[in-house]
């Protein structure tokens, strides 16, 4: 995927990111909603989590999704707020988690299990979080973190954004005492890296997957999720029907009846019947599919579990870039990334 130059976008990003222009936001720049989704997911506001918990969730999710790009960035941010190399190594090396504090261990396990979703965690996982002292809001926001970071992971990996090696190398000189101290304190509303939160309107739960946004139970990140869903389903590049089919396939792969039904309802509005959807879900094909959909539907299932070697999914995706063109492919990547996040979030509804 080529990087895309858009001076206005670059100026906006630099304004938000303290003068930096991350490669991911340059590579994703050709789609207005995908680039906005990435930027907003990276700074989704959280009201109950300390920055250290957000970064921990980000690192674990990026590791689980094998996203080299986001993983490197998460390590840098963790060091900035005072995590030592030794602490990060301990989290990475899951084998030593037995020795961690119950709260930290449960946080890591929750994020790992949700990112992995083999199978998707449910009520029992939420209950376990409560037992070790997490409030319902904190569990909701951790799930949202996994969904949002997972969105960035999939976009970065599927469009093969090169890691920010320079930033990673410079991270040693970026520690500040205040950064370190404030990261462990709860505050009213936080974002990862202390970025200004996006200016999204309060949710009205009327758009696609409105019930999922409602399940976030008033968490401020709900406005980001709703805006992202509305923007994605309003795109003129990837038809609403195609995006709904991508949601359906990913929901079916992860056995999520709620998201599958949501997709079926959206498809019915587009004139795609439930029987036709059943055929697609049974065979990953149908004469009703457009050429673009016929390529994207079997591919969408491969975005559910990011393989241990990202090179494999990148190789699998390359023919799609050639066949569909970079812009459509980027929107499909954004759609699959968003669907994966939403399906994982439905664990809050069961």
């Amino acid at each position, binding site marked *: 995927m080529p990087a895309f130059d858009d001076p206005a976008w670059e100026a906006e990003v630099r304004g938000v990111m303290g003068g930096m222009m991350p490669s991911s936001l340059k590579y994703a720049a050709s789609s207005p909603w995908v680039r906005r989704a990435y930027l907003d997911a990276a700074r989704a506001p959280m009201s109950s989590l300390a920055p250290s918990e957000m970064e921990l969730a980000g690192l674990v999710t990026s590791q689980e999704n094998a996203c080299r790009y986001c993983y490197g960035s998460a390590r840098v941010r963790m060091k900035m707020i005072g995590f030592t190399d030794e602490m990060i190594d301990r989290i990475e090396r*899951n*084998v030593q988690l*037995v020795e961690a504090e119950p709260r930290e261990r449960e946080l890591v396990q929750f994020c790992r299990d949700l990112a992995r979703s*083999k199978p998707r965690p449910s009520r029992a996982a939420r209950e376990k979080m409560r037992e070790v002292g997490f409030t319902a809001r904190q569990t909701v926001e951790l799930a949202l973190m996994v969904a949002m970071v997972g969105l960035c992971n999939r976009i970065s990996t599927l469009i093969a954004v090169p890691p920010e090696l320079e930033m990673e190398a410079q991270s040693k000189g970026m520690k500040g005492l205040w950064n370190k101290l404030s990261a462990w304190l709860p505050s009213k509303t936080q974002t990862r890296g202390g970025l200004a939160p996006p200016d999204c309107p309060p949710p009205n739960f009327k758009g696609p997957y409105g019930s999922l946004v409602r399940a976030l139970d008033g968490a401020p990140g709900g406005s980001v999720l709703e805006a992202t869903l509305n923007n994605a389903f309003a795109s003129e590049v990837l038809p609403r029907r195609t995006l709904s089919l991508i949601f359906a396939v990913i929901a079916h792969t992860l056995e999520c009846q709620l998201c599958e039904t949501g997709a079926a309802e959206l498809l019915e509005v587009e004139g795609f019947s439930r029987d036709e959807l059943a055929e697609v879900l049974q065979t*990953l094909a149908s*004469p009703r599919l457009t050429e673009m959909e016929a390529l994207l539907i079997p591919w969408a*299932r491969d975005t559910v579990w990011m393989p241990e070697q990202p090179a494999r999914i990148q190789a699998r995706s390359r023919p799609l870039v050639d066949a569909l063109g970079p812009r459509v492919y980027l929107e499909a990547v954004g759609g699959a990334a968003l669907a994966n996040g939403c399906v994982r979030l439905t664990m809050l509804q069961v």
Partner: protein
Amino acid sequence: MTAALVVALVGAAGVLAGLVVYAQRLRAEVSRHRTALARSVERLEHIEQSFKRFAPTDVVEQYAQGAGTSEPSHRKVTIMFADLKGFTPLSERIPPAAMVEMLNGYFRAMNGALVAHHGHLSRLMGDGLMALFGALEHNPWQTADAVKAALAMRDALAAYNRELEGRGLGKLEFGVGIHTGDVVAGVMGSDRFMEFTVIGDPVNIAARVEALTRVHRVDILVTEEVMKTLDPRFVTRAMPPVAVKGKAEPIATFAIDSYDERRKA
């Protein structure tokens, strides 16, 4: 007064010096333990990484985190058996090292095709293998995946045979049998040897179907249960039902010829 102060200062300096020496010793001790701990972690990780070649990652992680056992469960799985035909006489004609190299190359090629189609190589048995689809994660397309994997294995074997012929070695042929059904999946074995595998009647049937490839003189055979789930893009031929050991009714099987994307799903 001054003398007392000097004595006190000397005493305090002595205590301080003692503390410094003690702190240095402690630091050295901590450093030694850290190094030992780091080595143990490295060793443990090496073992864990090696173990992942023999069991699914999730299962290995459960054990690494202290779980003594992994809960077995019932699940629908598609089982594939693949066996080389006529490999024993061939292996008698070539040196053992060349034979092992030939076999390793074959397994490498087969594993690539399996992984590309969501399969998991569960067990090697001499020149045979057992692969599973849907054992490690929910997979609603597991039968189609298994058949596509078998077709990819056919292509991979053809490519490998060209390589072998170039090296003056014989050509390999295989038979593949695929069946689907409910099995028990989990880590099984004794204290000394354990593996993640599946057990149940469908496993036996898949093995019998693989053996039938010799009877029907085809390379890929599936059962009726698999056939029912395949869409028309799979080009198949019905084989006459054959009685097999342990089954009261003859088994109906279908040979897989090809997969044609242009056919209607």
